[in-house]
């Protein structure tokens, strides 16, 4: 007998979308932890070239002789790479699912937080991915140079950020990062179950604004300081 209630679409072996989100949250928070460390390191340049070069050397030799040279760096690199793959892969999976859940689009779409951030997280995430690649080519592999090539890390940094467009690229990236974090930190807290009341929700919003500001401002201080000649 016909029934007008359509049957469930079978037991597609789908991985839980909440699990995917949890992977995003965990990997995202791992990034944030790394970013805070990274930012702290970058700020060293304000104390002068030597301090910065020493710091750059120090992270390469950290833990020796227990760890081989660049040991910590490699642990971090592998961790970051794994996190990046997991983060991007889960993000793509959720994106695909979201598109599949609305194959006929609205004729009239409301402009608002949700529609903005749905796009901002995804396209903005891709922009961040592109930036990460650029950033690695710039400072790690040194296949791209801004200004001239230098052996000293500090010299590389200072030369790069003496050019306004070098600062521009990084500032743009920080804009995308800031946007990503504003919603990302809030989202991670939601995903991890930390939002338990309306008051708590306000606190999480506030926290995400504070952390985002610290990271964005912290990363932008050295380039601008260099541009304005405050670092020699």
């Amino acid at each position, binding site marked *: *007998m016909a*029934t*007008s209630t359509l049957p469930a679409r079978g037991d597609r072996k789908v991985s839980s979308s909440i699990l995917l989100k949890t992977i995003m949250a965990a990997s995202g928070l791992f990034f944030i932890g790394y970013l805070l460390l990274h930012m702290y390191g970058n700020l060293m340049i304000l104390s002068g070239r030597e301090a910065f070069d020493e710091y750059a050397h120090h992270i390469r030799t950290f833990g020796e002789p227990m760890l081989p040279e660049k040991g910590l760096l490699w642990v971090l690199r592998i961790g970051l790479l794994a996190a990046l793959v997991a983060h991007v892969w889960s993000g793509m999976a959720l994106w695909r699912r979201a598109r599949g859940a609305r194959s006929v689009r609205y004729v009239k779409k409301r402009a608002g937080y949700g529609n903005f951030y749905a796009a901002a997280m995804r396209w903005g995430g891709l922009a961040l991915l592109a930036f990460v690649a650029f950033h690695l080519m710039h400072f790690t592999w040194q296949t791209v140079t801004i200004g001239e090539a230098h052996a000293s890390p500090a010299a590389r940094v200072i030369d790069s950020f003496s050019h306004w467009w070098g600062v521009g690229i990084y500032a743009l990236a920080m804009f995308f990062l800031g946007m990503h974090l504003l919603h990302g930190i809030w989202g991670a807290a939601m995903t991890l179950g930390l939002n338990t009341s309306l008051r708590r929700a306000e606190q999480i919003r506030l926290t995400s604004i504070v952390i985002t500001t610290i990271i964005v401002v912290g990363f932008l201080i050295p380039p601008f300081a260099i541009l304005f000649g405050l670092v020699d």
Partner: protein
Amino acid sequence: MTDMLIDGLYREGEPIADTKAPDVADISQMWTERKFDAALVNPANRRKLDVIIVGTGLAGAAAGATLGEAGYNVKSFCYQDSPRRAHSIAAQGGINAAKNYKGDGDSIHRLFYDTVKGGDYRSRESNVYRLAEVSADIIDQCVAQGVPFAREYGGLLDNRSFGGVQVSRTFYARGQTGQQLLIGAYQALERQVGAGTVQMYSRHEMLEVIVVDDGDGQGPRARGIIARDLVTGEIETHLADVVVLATGGYGNVFFLSTNAMGSNVTAAWRAHRKGAYFGNPCYTQIHPTCIPQTGEHQSKLTLMSESLRNDGRIWVPKRAEDCEKDPRQIAEEDRDYYLERIYPGFGNLVPRDIASRQAKNMCDEGRGVGPAVDGVRRGVYLDFADAISRLGEDAVRSKYGNLFDMYERITGENPYQVPMRIYPAVHYTMGGLWVDYDLQSTIPGLFVTGEANFSDHGANRLGASALMQGLADGYFVLPNTIRDYLAKGPYPKLDESHPAVVEAQRSVQDRVERLVSVNGTRSVDSYHRELGKIMWEKCGMERTDAGLREAIEEIRALRQDFWTNVRVLGTPEGLNQSLERAGRVADFLELGELMCIDALHRRESCGGHFRAESQTEDGEALRDDDEFAYVAAWEWGGDGGAPVLHKEDLVYEHIELKQRSYK
């Protein structure tokens, strides 16, 4: 049966009586006795027994879940897109239960007494006693399911007193009691859907009951239904061993009511045409505190909790010429607080029927307020100015805030500043298919529960008792009585090719096709509106001999016109909402006539039925127990024929009959 037509309208047949209530002197033992006597069904056999339940309101969903849990093979139907949307969801106030959690002297007997008295001594003692008896179990069951009733700080359930009753026995969940109870029952039902014992057919409308003599010498019985799949338009046959109707009330015969848009009488009416007697069709309850109609465009009326009358004062201007004025400009001495004037003892807290009728009287005198619809202003003020100055706006807000918001949303007026306008509206129908103690109709194998049966409320229902009755029927009564019937099954195997089944299917098909092929000029809604007006004017709050006779003529003419001039566009295939409505209105057009005949024959006033000819000197309802202490059970007289009245005498052995007085 009388050969002569009485009043030219109906005949009188043999009296009818309930034969199922056990003959025990102690009324408190009756239900225990019946449960014991009712045969049991071996668990292994239950899977082989098919039960059809039409309706997923409190009565239907509770029964579906319970019978599913017991292991019967249940098919459940509703016209909405989900069982969770049945109209029970709209109930606001609360549900009664004789728990005596407040220790204020409540008991089964007191609830029984209050219900019989509230019903103006027109209900059956045995049924009402049972209702009071199982009421406590309902609360236990709902709490176990997770229904979030209001609680006190100690974590125990809160109660309030409701509808002028002296004890606090009403359990509630803010203003959403019906919703919470229904969702509890719905979840239990869905659990059985998941378990495979219940098959759910939503967006299906039952259009006929299949009554078959299956040849075992027991005569005809209900063996299934014909339903239309509202999505595909397919007319489907569903066969079973027993059929339960839990299809709700028929207040929508008045077009404007507080019922949901889709509430209808079709299921009950189709069963009536197949032999089920219709009990007390004229008993309708009219609720005094609804938001008035604002214009012709209006599709329904919205109820606001009666509790507003605890603090609001009801008035109209003394002079008709003041009615257009801003109410705040009308001086105190120019206002008529008519309830306080006429009933100094009870004031604004008189029972629903009295408050409603007086509001109508004021408007009929030309002293109504608000926008005029059809040239008459139908509204009276419910003023909180006194309460606000006495208690402060905050106190009023905390008590009634959500109601005030609802009022403002609908009317666009701020009731903290301008008096509210209210007017009575049809709300509940006490009448319905006649059933015995087992809830079985006069068609064997057809059981009727909830508001769809003629119920336990006599001529007037007490607040918070309908939810109680729906769940009592669904969880506790029907599952026990239906097994007595099912124990005699499985009934002979029936085929869709059986002539009676084919005939039922064909008649539905024909009717559907007829509706779309009339292709006249008037929309379905325009007929419904016109019928509603006739019913409201002549079979509403006050009924007269002459008015009812006119109404009968008008309804007959309207019905005739409907079948020659209605316009239903689209095809019977696929979703067609005009077609759905047309079928429902066609049945209302038949029911309306029977309601008027019933109202005409009952030449007394009782409960929600006020006959102008039967009133005391000062205009109060006058009951006539010598002549009318009976249930009027009407038998279908055939198309163009006259209905046949069967009387069930009401005998009061445990409660003494008294006349009500509120002066």
